[in-house]
């Protein structure tokens, strides 16, 4: 498990993004969205390798990042829907705002830790009164009957209302890149050659599209598909290069094909 030792575990997508953008000691003008997106995706991949349950929060932010990056690749596009473009900008601003907010509370947390550290150097007295005064203690059970005790017990044992979790910020599905790869390894040999647009035509969820995109990149890296883009900014064509249709490799064996 060399990974576990080398790299920090990120608390969440903002944590990871802050790390990627702020830890690079580069000239301001050299910060590039592409590099950050690559770093983010590499980290996602690492988490999958570590068999961590990659939370949908990470994937949602990945979706936004990939979309931002893909916009960057297009020139001042004419065919882009203006609403879509505005929505993307809004999303970006929101993401930026959340990063700033997250960073603010990270700093605040450091200050709280310092306060707690100072405070832990003192211990308050809880010794209370000595036995001389024990008789004076008012009887706290005055007016309490055995039945009250039973009632209190039943109250205490009653199942607590389950905390209702607001899932607004979480995608309803948990898409996994690994699953997507498995699907593609099953599907691509049958079709041989397909455009990315066609491959994702039936997907409604943006997140699902992104996950497929990540899966394709993964397969490309492994040399199992070729990517071809005949026209600049045109459709991306995916060509299956896998050798053995029937013996479609399990993901564990995928590395064998590398190189």
């Amino acid at each position: 498990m060399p990974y576990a030792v080398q790299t920090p575990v990120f608390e969440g997508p903002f944590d990871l993004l802050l790390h990627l953008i702020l830890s690079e000691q580069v000239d301001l003008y050299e910060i590039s969205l592409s590099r950050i997106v690559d770093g983010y995706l590499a980290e996602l991949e690492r988490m999958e390798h570590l068999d961590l349950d990659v939370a949908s929060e990470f994937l949602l932010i990945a979706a936004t990042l990939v979309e931002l990056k893909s916009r960057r690749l297009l020139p001042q596009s004419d065919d882009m829907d203006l609403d879509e473009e505005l929505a993307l900008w809004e999303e970006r601003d929101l993401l930026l705002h959340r990063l700033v907010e997250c960073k603010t509370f990270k700093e605040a947390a450091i200050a709280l830790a310092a306060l707690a550290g100072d405070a832990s150097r003192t211990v308050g007295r809880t010794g209370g009164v000595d036995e001389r005064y024990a008789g004076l203690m008012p009887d706290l059970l005055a007016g309490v009957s055995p039945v009250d005790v039973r009632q209190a017990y039943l109250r205490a044992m009653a199942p607590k209302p389950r905390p209702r979790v607001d899932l607004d910020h979480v995608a309803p599905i948990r898409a996994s890149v690994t699953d997507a790869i498995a699907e593609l390894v099953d599907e691509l040999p049958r079709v041989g050659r397909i455009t990315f647009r066609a491959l994702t035509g039936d997907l409604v969820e943006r997140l699902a599209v992104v996950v497929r995109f990540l899966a394709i990149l993964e397969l490309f890296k492994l040399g199992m598909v070729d990517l071809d883009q005949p026209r600049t900014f045109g459709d991306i064509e995916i060509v299956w290069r896998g050798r053995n249709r029937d013996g479609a490799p399990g993901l564990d064996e995928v590395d064998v094909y590398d190189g």
Partner: protein
Amino acid sequence: MTGGMRDEARRAIEAIVLVSEQPIEANLLGQLLELSPAVVDELCRELAAEYEADGRGFQLARVAGGWRFQSHPDQAPYVERFVLDGQSAKLSAAALETLAIVAYKQPISRAQVAAIRGVSVDGVMRTLQQRGYIAEIGRDPGPGQAVMFGTTRAFLERLGLDAIDDLPALGDFVPSADVVEQLERGLRPEPTVAERLANGDGDHADPAAGRGDGDHADPGAGRGDGE
């Protein structure tokens, strides 16, 4: 108030604060001694200064809205040796961040905290609640009636604060303009000024521009190169 009465009140304060199991409010001390809270606070400050001047191993301190006796921070090494159960386990980074959000944004719902942190906070919030640092302090009047959380006295005691207003201002922690600019640039979906200039000049030798072009042609390439 004569000097004798003053001495009398000071002694009574010492006795009562000593036997109180938690920080005791100036109000309550005032009621017991028939003094105004302001006078009580003044006498307590006097006593505190005296202990410090005498080099005592304890302090009279104002914590969580009341006065209490506590060991002097200097003596932490000895006290830690004695208080074996390390009474307050260290708070994790996640717990501290969550606590900071609740402290500054209270009252706040679990979902709102999760939105700020970008991850689910159910487990952390439950732990903080169990440890008594946060508590349910009401319900959102809105349609969802979400449970709203706030910090507790125990939180103030843990941080050695007198009141929640004594927290440093949140504004102190807002990232500097430099950092914000860096973040903004990291998420900028258009060519940077440098690139635009480079492209405009048609300077093909510029490696940055070259890299950009590579990306255009093949979305996978940049990634592959990086590996």
